[in-house]
């Protein structure tokens, strides 16, 4: 099928998804004539909202890339949230126990976040490669375990003694992402874009990226022509965990400035959605991630102005995924009426 017909089908499915979402929003109490205003103008042309979008986009780009890496190796890494949590815990541990001189503090936190995210991804991939344990279940279970461990820390040993809220003490200024144009948002997004470029190089230019394409197309054939399939899967999943770990670092050292109890909520599915819509392409994932970030910010505005629960954002994401997934059928098959 020519590319322009594919594009038309994709556009129709996206429009359908947004149409259904808009109908649900109207049914939930948003005035129909305010939709465009709320979603597009308020979100993208308001300086403060735009800043919020950039803030939100950096971790989104990172989890999206993380999901794309694992999916390229045909590995369903649903443990993005757990890996993010452990990345954030690793970064916070460096701050909490005062490890390293102030000048090296931030790089140390980043390194620790990468290491912890990677470690949390190691278990499901080893279990899969060695024993054939279903990675969907194992990585999801590890999310719940990580979430409870996070609560254990922020309600227990790491609780800020200054007040009674469940979060860690505020990071010191040198433990936060440096400000640029007056906020940490641009720094975070610059970091995320740098990582996206690296990911693009890895996937599109490097030899490993080529191998990974073999593995994605047909693991058995890849093995037959001498691609180290298991090592490639291991590497891709560990990379995925490391990227999620960086996402956790960006949230605690950027947006939040401390470890909080539910900072990871919504990122897991968003990462999967971004990778799916971008067809595991790093550059496309970056663009989609910014759009998803805009959706998150719009969702928060709706919560404030119309008391629409934030779960609306998740519902809209799911509807868009369902519509696009279904459109694939019409791209791959031609429907003709039978006489």
């Amino acid at each position, binding site marked *: 099928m020519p590319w322009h017909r594919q594009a038309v089908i994709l556009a129709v499915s996206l429009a359908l998804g947004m149409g259904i979402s808009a109908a649900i929003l109207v049914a*939930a109490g948003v005035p129909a004539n305010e939709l465009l205003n709320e979603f597009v103008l308020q979100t993208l042309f308001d300086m403060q909202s735009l800043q919020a979008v950039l803030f939100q986009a950096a971790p989104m780009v990172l989890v999206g890339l993380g999901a794309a890496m694992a999916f390229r190796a045909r590995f*369903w890494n*649903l443990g993005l949230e757990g890996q993010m949590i452990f990345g954030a815990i690793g970064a916070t541990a460096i701050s909490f126990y005062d490890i390293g001189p102030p000048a090296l503090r931030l790089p140390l936190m980043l390194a620790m976040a990468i290491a912890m995210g990677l470690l949390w991804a190691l278990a499901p991939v080893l*279990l899969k490669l060695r*024993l*054939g*344990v*279903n990675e*969907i*279940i*194992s990585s*999801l*279970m*590890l999310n*719940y*375990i990580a979430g*409870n*461990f996070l*609560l*254990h820390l922020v*309600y*227990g040993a790491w609780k800020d003694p200054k007040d009674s809220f469940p979060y860690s003490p505020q990071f010191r200024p040198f433990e936060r992402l440096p400000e640029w144009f007056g906020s940490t948002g641009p720094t975070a997004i610059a970091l995320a874009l740098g990582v996206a470029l690296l990911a693009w190089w890895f996937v599109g230019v490097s030899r490993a990226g080529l191998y990974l394409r073999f593995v994605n197309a047909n693991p058995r054939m890849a093995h037959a022509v001498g691609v180290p399939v298991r090592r490639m899967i291991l590497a891709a999943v560990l990379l995925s965990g490391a990227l999620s770990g960086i996402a956790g670092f960006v949230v605690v050292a950027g947006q939040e400035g401390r470890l909080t109890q539910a900072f990871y909520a919504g990122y897991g*599915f968003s990462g*999967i959605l971004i990778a*799916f819509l971008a067809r595991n392409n790093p550059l496309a994932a970056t663009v989609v991630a910014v759009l998803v970030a805009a959706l998150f910010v719009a969702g928060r505005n709706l919560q404030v102005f119309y008391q*629409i*629960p934030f*779960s*609306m*954002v*998740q*519902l*809209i*994401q*799911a*509807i868009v*995924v*369902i519509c696009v*997934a*279904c459109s*694939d*059928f019409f791209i791959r098959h031609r429907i003709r009426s039978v006489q």
Partner: protein
Amino acid sequence: MNAFAIATNWLGNAPDFAVPYALAALGLILTERAGVLSLGAEGLMLVGALAGIGAQLAFGEPGIALVVAMLAASLVSVLFAVMTILLRVNQVIAGLALVFFCQGLTSLLGTLFGWTNRAVDSFAALPLGPLAALPLVGRLFEQNIVVYLTLPIFLGVVWYLTRTSAGLRLRAVGENPQAADAAGINVTAWRFAAVLAGAALVGLAGAYISVVSTKLWIAGMTGGRGWIAVGLVIFARWSPWKALVGAVLFGCIEALIPQLAAAGVRLPQYFVLMTPYVVTLAVMVWVAVGRRGSDGEPGALGEPYLREERR
């Protein structure tokens, strides 16, 4: 509290925790035996849980509430069936999308309708005559009607799958759709039916949690039990009776947690809350270590079927 009272309470509470796992796993087995990989259990349980509470608030009759919950879960699963069976969307993507769709939808509707945290009445315990007066195990025979009904439901599904020609057709569709099609079985129709019937049982499991067990609705209240049920089915190698054993095991573990706390055993709270997930992981590893081949797994699990497609 003495050890005897603790053991009595523990045994008495275990079925209440085991029933949702058992029913959800049974529903999943029914669907997956027809060759459709069903990852949507977590979402369908939430749909059942919310619909059950809604119906209970409206009618005040728990029996009707459970039926409404089953119908609601079946209705939502039509979406999944259309995606996977007709449009041949990747079954993992479709399952995940279904879970997130249901999580968003139930959380939104629960808030908009104001059903959150509203307590409802439910079934009373039915003591089984003299059995309930037995020492130690007596409270096992003082359960609500759904617990007692779980066993006949299992018997019915097993009988259907293994002793009827309809059950044979369903399994044939899951093992080898090409052969089933050649034998004149409508693969699409059977898979559709299996998805809807399985979803009804999963919805019943969800409604048990909200209507019968906790007696209220909180967004996301299933807390990963649907995923644990998916793991349980793999653990049971798609056999209903083994799934029932697994469900009872999980029920016993979950029921033990509050009893330990009552006994004064001081455990870190959040590590205790991790237990079901850690146990699931451990069980998956244990099964994988001892596994020989892919015994019990339906041959065409996760494979879409289209008659004209070349293999």
